[in-house]
């Protein structure tokens, strides 16, 4: 009997902890979503759930001439999609080469990748800025796409680790049947690495979607900005005076990424795991 009691108490405790954790996980998101529907502009509110709901802040984002939110949305979508395509191609092809072939200089390339990844990212910002200035690429989206895609290769260890786990006998068999390296890659490796591809595509898309450090440096005119830059500006200039507008903007930026994440969750976890077990 007492044993039963004890386990009942423990179970109740478990559920209490779970509920507390769930509330703290959900609360910030819930709060910002509800705030975006709240009339008025202030951060302070007597209650969590507003008495009346309004869409006025969302409308203002798209109608207010000083925001150009719609334009930023399109810019960001363009940059993120192209970055995703280019970096996925670059990463998978180069990691396929590094995982499958043994050639001179391979170890040095791997070590160089590792070492370069350890420098703080924006140590290189000033130099890239001047480089883009001299190439006349400042304030263009092409510059952002170029830098994001080129930089993404350094983070390819996860992909290499994944390719390492695919048995080599598969491609050797195809090679004996006369397939070229490119055919082996497209017809055998790619179909087998769908979770990895999804992982790489999603992380590079999200990376470009939310980067504001580099984007702020490169994009100088307002109509070229990305969402993250605009958002950062919004926060810096309006945070206290127009909090609900910030909330609406935040919801619109976070929504696509969060939805993508939940749809592709399975692939993400697999991708992370396969990188993890390899170190």
């Amino acid at each position, binding site marked *: 009997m007492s044993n039963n009691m004890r386990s009942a108490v423990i179970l109740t405790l478990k559920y209490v902890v779970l509920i507390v954790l769930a509330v703290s996980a959900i609360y910030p998101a819930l709060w910002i979503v509800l705030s975006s529907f709240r009339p008025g502009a202030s951060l302070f509110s007597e209650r969590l759930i507003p008495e009346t709901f309004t869409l006025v802040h969302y409308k203002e984002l798209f109608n207010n001439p000083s925001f150009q939110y719609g334009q930023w949305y399109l810019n960001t979508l363009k940059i993120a999609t192209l970055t995703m395509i280019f970096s996925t191609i670059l990463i998978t092809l180069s990691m396929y080469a590094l995982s499958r072939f043994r050639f001179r200089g391979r170890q040095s390339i791997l070590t160089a990748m590792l070492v370069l990844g350890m420098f703080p990212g924006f140590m290189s910002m000033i130099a890239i800025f001047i480089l883009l200035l001299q190439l006349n690429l400042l304030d263009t989206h092409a510059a952002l796409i170029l830098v994001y895609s080129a930089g993404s290769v350094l983070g390819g260890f996860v992909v290499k680790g994944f390719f390492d786990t695919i048995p080599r006998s598969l491609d050797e068999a195809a090679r004996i049947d006369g397939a070229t390296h490119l055919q082996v890659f497209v017809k055998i490796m790619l179909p087998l690495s769908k979770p990895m591809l999804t992982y790489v595509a999603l992380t590079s898309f999200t990376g470009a979607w939310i980067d504001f450090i580099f984007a702020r440096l490169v994009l100088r005119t307002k109509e070229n900005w990305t969402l993250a830059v605009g958002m950062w500006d919004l926060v810096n200039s309006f945070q206290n005076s127009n909090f609900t507008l910030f909330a609406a903007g935040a919801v619109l930026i976070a929504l696509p990424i969060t939805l993508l994440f939940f749809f592709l969750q399975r692939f993400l976890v697999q991708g992370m795991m396969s990188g993890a077990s390899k*170190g």
Partner: protein
Amino acid sequence: MRQRGIAAVLSTLFMGLGQLYNRQYIKGLLFAAIEVSALIWLMPNIGKALWGVYTLGEKTQGFQKVGKLNVRVEGDHSIYLLISGLITLFVLAIFILIYIMTIRDAYRTGKSREAGIAIPSFQETLAYVTDKKFPLLMLSVPIIGVLFLTVMPIVFMIMLAFTNYAAPNNIPPKSLVDWVGFDTFANLVTLKTWSATFIGVATWTIIWAIIATVTTYIGGILVALLIESKGVYFKKMWRTIFILPYAIPQLISLLVMRNLFNGQFGPINQYLGYFGLGKLPWLTDPFWAKVTVIMVNMWIGIPVSMVLILGILTAIPKDMYEAAEVDGATSFQKFRIITMPFILFSTVPILITQFAGNINNFSVIFLLTNGDPVNGDYQYAGSTDLLVTWLYKLTLNNSQFNMSSAIGIVIFLIVASFSIWNYRRSRSFKEEDMIQ
């Protein structure tokens, strides 16, 4: 002279000549075209590049009397000189590399001619390259991208640490920048204002990295075990709820948190008020700001470790637990002897990667507190600033470029020593070829 010698000497004289001599006409013309275009571009630039990198410019911007007018004369811009010099030198290095490769190619083809082997046609060469040299072909584009967009900028910044490029006295185009050797590093250690900030910020960086890594790791294990424990229903639902913080982009969640913890109007202080407790200076007091940063980091980081550890838990063979139960093990013993070693074994590499990542965790600090509250004893840094955010402020707000480069090098040394140690001991390095 034998054919290999002639081919090699011809190739050394002018790129492509050796190939032409070997009757590989298309290849030879292609190489010759490369050399011609390289010479056209390099000839006027190379001298200026060497001079620019060596002197960093000699003419200061100034005024000159032309007739009765004072006309401004543009001086040398040291930083542009340094960068364009570096680019030229990088291109030159690539060119020399190609040069050496063509000479070797001419030599080899000459050798096979002597042996009486047929010279490969252009099509055959192409087929050879796409087959045998496939990896290098695939890697050439990313390597060039990384060379100019990552390696060149890093070399540039390392060089900056050895100059006096800093406000207020040495900012081009108004004045020149000079090489100063190790003065910047010496200042960082010996000048009281710099060294106090450096030691303070570096200490907090290390403390932060340890606490941030440990709290998220242990938190992740506990949450994962809780979800997987006996008697808990709706496991999938709990999992989905707890993943939510991971799914929201950090940029957004951190800015939201900044409002949530707002000292005056934020809801957290509001709720504390309901319970009759006083308001807390979450972001404005040096101590509480550090607490807030660590708490918010747990909110963001625990879901990540939870997902990882849930994955590992499902991989533990069930019969191990059954065997332990037969032997009469309590649930704590099962945890200590089976679960924990399993988790540790597969996550130690990630743990160290996360630690290194936390040293460079820019976004949490920058977006949440921006390094504030201000610390009067520090030079251009606040109480929660990490080395990276300090570096960022020094570069973009205070134009202390040489000092920020020196700090960047220090960060690199710290992170590198951890990562290399980790990499060398990890299985994937030692047994790379054994898994396949």
